[in-house]
């Protein structure tokens, strides 16, 4: 049997050139989290860590935990998920602080996030993500806020990625 040997090298080169790239693992960014950074109300350019922060979402049972990635005993920023089923998410942030008698007590503050959802195709294995546009918020005043002020980092606020903080909380 005789095969033209001149074909062997071009064949090998072409097969390498045409190799198919695997795409069955999701490595791209999916639905972004709300990133909040904590600042000192008395010294607004400095970070101020909060102690023992616990995060709850209205309508969902249990605390949100991320294996101490951001939600740690002492932290100056947290990344928390925003609901993809509604255009409103209610957040409850509870921290530990010292009262007038130097006792450690809990203080819970609530705020609501309002936004327009947009679903965007990411890739074959990731599927679709939701991004949040025109985000606004409303802090609940309970006469004992540990959250003194809330500020968006840009206006209008669109939460589309995780590159920087979206909201500043002064405490």
């Amino acid at each position, binding site marked *: 049997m005789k095969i033209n040997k001149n074909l062997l090298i071009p064949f090998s080169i072409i097969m390498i050139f045409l190799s198919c790239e695997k795409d069955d693992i999701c490595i791209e960014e999916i639905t972004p989290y709300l990133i909040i950074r904590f600042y000192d109300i008395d010294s607004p350019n400095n970070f101020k860590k909060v102690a023992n922060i616990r995060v709850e979402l209205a309508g969902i049972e249990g605390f949100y935990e991320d294996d101490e990635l951001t939600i740690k005993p002492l932290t100056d920023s947290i990344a928390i998920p925003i609901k993809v089923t509604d255009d409103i998410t209610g957040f409850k942030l509870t921290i530990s602080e010292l009262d007038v008698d130097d006792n450690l007590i809990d203080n819970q503050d609530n705020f609501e996030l309002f936004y327009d959802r947009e679903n965007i195709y990411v890739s074959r294995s990731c599927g679709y*993500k939701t991004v949040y546009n025109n985000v606004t918020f409303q802090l609940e005043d309970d006469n004992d806020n540990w959250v003194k002020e809330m500020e968006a980092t840009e206006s209008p606020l669109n939460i589309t990625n995780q590159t920087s903080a979206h909201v500043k909380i002064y405490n």
Partner: protein
Amino acid sequence: MLKFIINIILFLVFIPTFSQEAETEEVYKDRYGIRFGIDVMQPIYSLFDDKKNGLEIVGDYRITKKLFIAAELGYNDTATYEDFYNFRTNGSYIKFGVDANVYKNWIGMENLIYAGLRYGFSVFDQTLNEVQINADPFLPPQTLPESINYNSLNASWVSIVFGIKVEVLHNVFLGFSVSGNKLISSKEPENFKNLFIPGFNKVFVNSNGYGFNYTITYLIPFYKKDH
């Protein structure tokens, strides 16, 4: 009387000599014609997997001793299931190009080991179903209720093909081929992607793809030419 008998005998002896023809050499001539048939891989696959349906007609036409014009024509209706969604692609395609036979046949045989090029074009629809938004599992899941139809999409590509064709019965060939495909152009659906294209098959991240083909074809010879 004796002279007559001897003349007859001599005449009869020499007749075989006169009727003996000069032996001519048998020269083998190549057969040229059209060969057509179907891909049997798709129909057999469809029996076991109802997510894939399709039919492909294949053909080629010999133009020189080693070159053939080749074409494939088919339709395909395939459902693909991914982690967070599924979709159905259906449409038709045509591929045409040239095959070159690199195999030196023994005299009288007509088998092929070939390399070829194809240009392919497809027109198709996509239907996207059951999209579940990819977000933190702490959140209640969101599955989009409605399917989305994308109609009249198209794509074009080039392929390099390697294959064999063996004559198993007179004029009947069995063939197998592998193709490497590279997408040239495509009309993409809005907020989605052509992840599968009829004729091209699964589209990988770098716009490459591959395919297999197992065919039964029949040759209709038209004329013969010197080898």
